[in-house]
């Protein structure tokens, strides 16, 4: 009986860690506001997690703000344009009130502009995925604290059609 009690405790710990992790990752998706962001993607491969694209957003390179330094958190206020794309409007070092904003980290500062990462710079596929490489936008969800999660990739404003090249066994 002692062993089964330990099993229950161990599974509670492991599933608890995994569950909290899933909840943390899901929170913006469950509660957040939907935004569409413009992109400039490239596609590498991660040995642990497979094929993915690195997404370079238009809001990745924005004008610097006074007093900002590498590693700082920044809050980028977004505004929707007539094409329904959310674009950078203003940057602040503190969380703004009554505005749609996304939270990022300054990776580098070059003169009057800076490079910011938002944690949504990658999107994973299974191997041999084929999809259009241009005219891509990203549908994301934003939590009230500015945390973002990718929902899906869009091609010409519609959910992207991913096809998978058939794998032929050679041995």
């Amino acid at each position: 009986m002692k062993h089964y009690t330990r099993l229950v405790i161990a599974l509670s710990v492991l599933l608890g860690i995994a569950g909290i992790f899933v909840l943390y990752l899901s929170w913006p998706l469950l509660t957040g506001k939907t935004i569409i962001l413009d992109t400039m993607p490239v596609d590498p491969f991660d040995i642990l997690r497979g094929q993915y694209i690195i997404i370079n957003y238009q809001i990745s390179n924005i004008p610097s703000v006074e007093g900002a330094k590498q590693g700082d958190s920044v809050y980028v206020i977004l505004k929707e344009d007539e094409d329904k794309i959310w674009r950078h409007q203003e940057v602040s070092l503190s969380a703004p009130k009554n505005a749609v904003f996304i939270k990022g980290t300054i990776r580098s500062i070059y003169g009057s502009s800076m490079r910011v990462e938002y944690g949504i710079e990658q999107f994973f596929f299974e191997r041999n995925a084929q999809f259009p490489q241009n005219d891509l936008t990203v549908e994301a969800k934003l939590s009230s604290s500015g945390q973002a999660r990718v929902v899906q990739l869009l091609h010409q404003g519609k959910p992207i059609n991913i096809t998978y090249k058939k794998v032929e066994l050679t041995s």
Partner: protein
Amino acid sequence: MLTGKKGASFGTIVAVFGSILIALGIAWLIAQNWHQLPSAVKIVILLVVTSAAYTSGTIFRVKGHQGTGKSLLILGALLYTLSIFLIAQIFSTSTSFQGTAWLLLLAWIGVIAAAYLFDSSASLVIALFEFIIWLVIQFIAFMEAKDDMISPGILAFYFLTAGILLYGLSLFHRSKGYKFARVYQWWTAFYFLLFTYILTFQTLLPLMWPKEAASASNSLVFLLFFGIAASASILIGLVKAVSNKSVQNKEIFAFIAVVVLLGVIIGLTSFVSEDNGDMLSWFLGGRGEVSTALWAMWIFVNITFILAILGIIFYGTWQKLPKIINLGVIFFGLDVITRYVGFIMDLWGYTSLSVIFITGGIVLLAGGYFIEKWRRNLITKTEPAKKTK
């Protein structure tokens, strides 16, 4: 107490292969249909498979099939780690080094908790292996955040601190008579030997504290907290072990001497540091004259490494721990091979290669024979004591 046979029998090995095959089969099945499954289903599959491995492992152990149970617990630890990475994939989390470091942190914390709850040394080994990788990836993440080079000397201090932390845990477990003490003892020895071995390369010594390295505030704050944890571990471990006499004073003094010596070596390498601009050419062999200070440093580190190996072997013999003796002998063999390859590279073009190869071959053959003979003798010395227990 659990009952049943210990050790890896043929049946156990077959069971391990069976577990791995089942895991691979499930992984392949999921991989083939991964994009067709909703995210929630993917997560449920991963967690159910992990739970199934742990549950079946426990059932087998209770029924007395220790080997099969052990292999399933190993499988559970691996599947849990895999689940963390696949959940991260499902949510497209950051692929940066910091993102990977967070995943490894979740992985080793879960696996170490399971190791204690299931009383599984094999799971603890997996957790400690993930811990090392996490430590290195976290250091690289600090460099990534700075977008610049941080002195690798700080990473060396991470390893030294990890060694202290593990030794503290080993003492604490010894005072309680708990079997994990042996695992921590082995890993402490492994950390110190690996760490000193890396320092024995002349090419690496000037890179430890590059003159134009970036300020390393984040990595130093991490080292500070890590140091506090290690200090707490060693203090608690020492108090417990000394109070119930499970450690002798000379072992503690020897440990302190090793830590101080290694700390001094890391610090001394700052006297042979290079400019950032020269580092790449230095590493690629485009360096000019080797300074006297660097030669002296290199000889000092190599003598220390040999002494560390002999010290570990002596410790293994004294404590009657064949695994520690084997570890010391493996590092001795590694040192011989490394220095031999180093001499070939240094003397390339100056001396007839055939002479170097023949001489080296004879040295390695004879060395291999005598090292193996030496190892067997040392192991034999530990055996009579075992039988009397």
